[in-house]
């Protein structure tokens, strides 16, 4: 007779097997430059630096350099083949930003929505400088009065 415990174990094992991802993935080989480096080390280092600062769209907290998602591979192929064709990293970044918005880039750019991030610290510094000047100026005046 099969014990209840055995049935329990069978159930546990079944659940373990069911955790295998259900969603299908494509079976195509990766794009030519998804995992292959460029022959010219200077161009490859340019491409790598750029890939580390571009966001993977499928796995949103990784750069496309860090991600194994097929789409990240296809984006790396775009970056490497465009670098090879003579495009500059900043041109490629703007090409992607024109398609996906600022979101795709980890390197913040000044735009209609991000300017407070850049202006904020400058304004704070100016306020601090103003306060300091007034306080120090006052103290000097006090000292002058006392003398």
């Amino acid at each position, binding site marked *: 007779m099969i014990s209840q415990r055995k049935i329990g174990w069978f159930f546990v094992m079944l659940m373990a097997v069911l955790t295998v991802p*259900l*969603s*299908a*993935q*494509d*079976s*195509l080989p990766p*794009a*030519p430059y998804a995992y292959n480096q460029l022959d010219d080390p200077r161009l490859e280092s340019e491409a790598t630096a750029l890939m580390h600062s571009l966001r993977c*769209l*499928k796995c*949103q907290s990784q750069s496309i350099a860090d991600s194994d998602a*097929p*789409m990240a591979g*296809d*984006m790396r*192929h*775009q970056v490497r083949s465009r670098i090879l064709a003579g495009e500059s990293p900043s041109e490629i970044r703007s090409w*992607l*930003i*024109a*398609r*996906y*918005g600022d*979101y*795709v880039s980890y390197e913040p750019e000044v735009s209609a929505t991000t300017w407070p991030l850049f202006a904020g610290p400058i304004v704070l510094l100016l306020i601090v400088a103003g306060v300091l000047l007034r306080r120090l100026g006052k103290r000097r005046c006090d000292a002058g009065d006392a003398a």
Partner: protein
Amino acid sequence: MPPLRFRRNSGMRSRLFLWLPLALFAFFAGVAGYMLTQDKDEFVESTMIGEPLPEFALEPAVAGLPGASKAHFVGGKPRLLNIWASWCLPCIAEAPQLEALQAEGVEIIGIAIRDRPEDVSNFLGRYGNPYAAIGSDKISEVQLAIGSSGVPETFVIDANGVIRYQHIGDIRQADVPMLLGELDNAR
């Protein structure tokens, strides 16, 4: 003594001032708490709405249907560009809705992402073929060029080849009239 009174006044003011950092902190904690309760928007929308489709010409994704190119979208009426793949589960769910749209007279051009002809053919055999043409995008080249970040996605393209609307995710039953409306708007 006048100086003492002056000091007492400024003392009260600065005591109130002491609460300012805490108030600011509470404000930011409140904002953070509020944002944590909000649903995260995981979709990356295309910023190509209003822009013309880029030039492209893709090989046929399956025998018996033409491949897809920009020329398919120019002239006549607005069309749908459906980004899909045979390996994508939500694409199965939206297949009946694409057929319903086709039955309404909508011309649907597909782009199959990272797909094989035999898999595309199996998919169409099993779930029906609403497409007038399907291009094979083996390296997501056209997908990236139009700012699409996954499968399935559906774009409304007007008769001038300009991208007018993007639907992210599978087309549900309720989305069919909405897409028909967007196609009308693009006229």
